[in-house]
């Protein structure tokens, strides 16, 4: 529970932890750190980066919805934009507060609303069937990350945005770097640095009006600028948000549900029996795995959290993934369970910055899961899996799968 600071209230000593949440050891398996931070208290001081951190559901949820006290315009990564120059012009959505956030959010929310997506549904269901048929026609063992989790979003999403066909292989590395850049300037950021200029130039070029087809999400964003709902200067940056945040996240979410199903065969059978659970399955996987693990906020005033105070101007690291497995909120949180109601998980965030593309991600995942459920009787891991490390994302490099068809 957060509240404006009341000087009369006592404060408890703040628990501290010297863990580096962005070390390779933690990125390989963050669950023990999450548990330790949750147990330490509602607010913990991370000494390595002089950061405040929240790992419990209640505090994370409350901070996410409280844009008044926890701002985004100072950046939602570790870097404070009021003190350091961002690596690219800030996002008009993710890295903005009201009132500047209002118009871009309104426009994009309309373009990506469940109503607008209805016209895409049949096509995406057919695309998923086609992809699954292609894959299963030639192989019963394959790496699910490139073959399904990356292939399907890359097949449908860039077309829906309306970008050209050349250079789409740059989308994943661009997103990977953007999400690394929310963390500290560690080796993961360094690894991406050599391609930043090339990738940014390409992505920015795709956002221009004449680079976009005339009927996709991109064209609809430009049309909003014709009506004056956003400015012509804002339109390409709103398109950029789609290209940055709309690919890697969905890929890792689909990887998560595929891994979950491969390791929980009883849940796969449930889905087979009740295909209408496909959407629940995806959201449960987003809760369970939390493809977006963390985001930062900055305190706009001295903010009370539990019996502690986050001083004005300080960064707060919110562990969405930890909140999504907080036993204070979830029964048996480590289980991937389709009988659970995953509603209210914070894997897409919450409040005014909640993932504006969540309905797109759900539709992509639902289409792919329905296509697989139609043909695959059982699936299992066919070899050792390998994680992909990213400062913000929980990701797989490789998920070898073996499938048995009907």
């Amino acid at each position, binding site marked *: 529970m957060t509240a404006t600071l009341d000087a009369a209230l006592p404060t408890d000593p703040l628990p501290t932890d010297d863990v580096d949440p962005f070390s390779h050891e933690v990125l390989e398996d963050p669950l023990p750190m999450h548990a330790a931070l949750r147990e330490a208290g509602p607010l913990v001081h991370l000494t390595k980066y002089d950061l405040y951190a929240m790992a419990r559901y*209640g505090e994370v949820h409350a901070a996410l919805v409280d844009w008044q006290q926890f701002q985004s315009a100072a950046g939602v990564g570790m870097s404070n934009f009021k003190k350091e120059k961002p690596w690219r012009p800030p996002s008009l959505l993710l890295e903005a507060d009201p*009132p500047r956030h209002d118009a871009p959010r*309104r426009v994009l929310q309309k373009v990506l*609303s469940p109503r607008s997506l209805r016209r895409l549904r049949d096509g995406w269901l057919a695309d998923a069937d086609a992809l699954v048929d292609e894959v299963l026609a030639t192989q019963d063992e394959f790496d699910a990350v490139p073959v399904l989790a990356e292939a399907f979003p890359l097949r449908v999403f860039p077309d829906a945005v309306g970008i050209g066909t050349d250079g789409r292989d740059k989308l994943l590395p661009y997103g990977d770097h953007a999400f690394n850049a929310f963390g500290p300037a560690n080796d993961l950021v360094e690894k991406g640095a050599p391609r930043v200029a090339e990738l940014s130039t390409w992505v920015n070029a795709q956002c221009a009006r004449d680079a976009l087809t005339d009927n996709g999400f991109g064209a609809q964003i430009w049309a909003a600028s014709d009506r004056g709902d956003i400015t012509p200067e804002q339109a390409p940056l709103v398109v950029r948000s789609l290209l940055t945040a709309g690919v890697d996240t969905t890929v890792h979410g689909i990887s998560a549900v595929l891994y979950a199903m491969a390791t929980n065969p009883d849940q796969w059978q449930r889905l087979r029996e009740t295909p209408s659970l496909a959407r629940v399955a995806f959201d449960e996987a987003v809760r369970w795995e939390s493809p977006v693990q963390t985001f930062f906020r900055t305190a706009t005033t001295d903010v009370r959290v539990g019996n502690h105070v986050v001083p004005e101007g300080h960064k707060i690291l919110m562990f969405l993934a930890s909140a999504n497995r907080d036993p204070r909120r979830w029964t048996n949180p480590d289980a991937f369970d389709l009988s659970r109601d995953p509603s209210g998980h914070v894997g897409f965030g919450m409040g005014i910055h909640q993932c504006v593309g969540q309905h797109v991600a759900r539709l992509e995942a639902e289409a792919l899961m329905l296509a697989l459920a139609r043909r695959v009787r059982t699936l299992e891991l066919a070899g050792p899996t390998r994680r992909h490390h990213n400062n913000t994302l929980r990701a797989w490099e490789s998920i070898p799968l073996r499938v048995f068809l009907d």
Partner: protein
Amino acid sequence: MFSHPLRECSVGHTGCAHDDGMTATVPLAASAGADVATLRVIGKTVVAEDVMTLELAAPSGGRLRDWTPGSHIDLRLPNGMTRQYSLCGDRWDPTTYRVGVLREPAGHGGSAFVHDELSVGDVVGVAGPRNNFPLVPSDSYLFVAGGIGITPLLPMIAQADLLGADWRLLYGGRRRASMAFLDELEAYGDRVLIRPQDEHGLLDLAGYLGEPRPGVRIYACGPSPLLAAMEAGCAGWPAHTLRTERFVADETGAAVRTTPFEVELARTGATVTVTPDMTILDALGQVGVEVLTSCRRGVCGTCETTVLAGRPDHRDALLDDDERDTADFMYVCVSRCTTDRLVLDL
């Protein structure tokens, strides 16, 4: 305030005074939706001749649904009428809404009820906020308010000022004493022109607007003759310069029910009764039918459910007014039903 009441209802409010001590921290108790769709009157103040403001808050005292300048809410009044009012408070206060209400002698009694009957402590059903009149980005704004039409413009002005935009307000009314919020506008100094008709005559729109020029956004709200004059006056300006919201006469609308209704689940084959103290989502949970949700406040759209028969009473903050007549889907976390029976594709 700007009451542009569109609906008048024959039955009382549907909400329940739901206060289960739920905290804002873990808002996932079953009826989270009810806590933002049913609010309590916590303040009532006369601010001008025939104009009052109401302050509304959740029974739990928790956060209300976020809003943007230009938004309005529907009030489901305890006398069964529904009226729309623009929000004119401070969006940085997450727990309070403020609306302004003009007494309309020629209306059907909604505004009279608010003025004469509604009391601090009373509970009203709320739908929205929704925004058909959003403030779009610009470096330069001209605002024109007629009478109670000042209400949606108040938060716009605060925002334009906050952003350092170049802005002016021309505010007309019958006479000074009938014009609300003059005290709040005083702080803006000579950016604001107060023009009561009995002192200044009709508004000099041509002189105020000046020559057509690019990059300006003009916002006008007030009675129809004023907006017609604005449309004529802005004819020579670039397209999309003028944005207006019309004061709609107090008129009759659909009934909102306060009695239980039946929800039939076409695919499951079950039927469940939704009582006034529960949401449809709660009722579905009781028969083991899960609908994926996220915010449970009618803002995210995750729980969109197809409606096969019956008439939804949309209480979300997603649909625009022109989408609200739709009967083919609804957001079941907060929305209800105006008919005896609702058939969902579940």
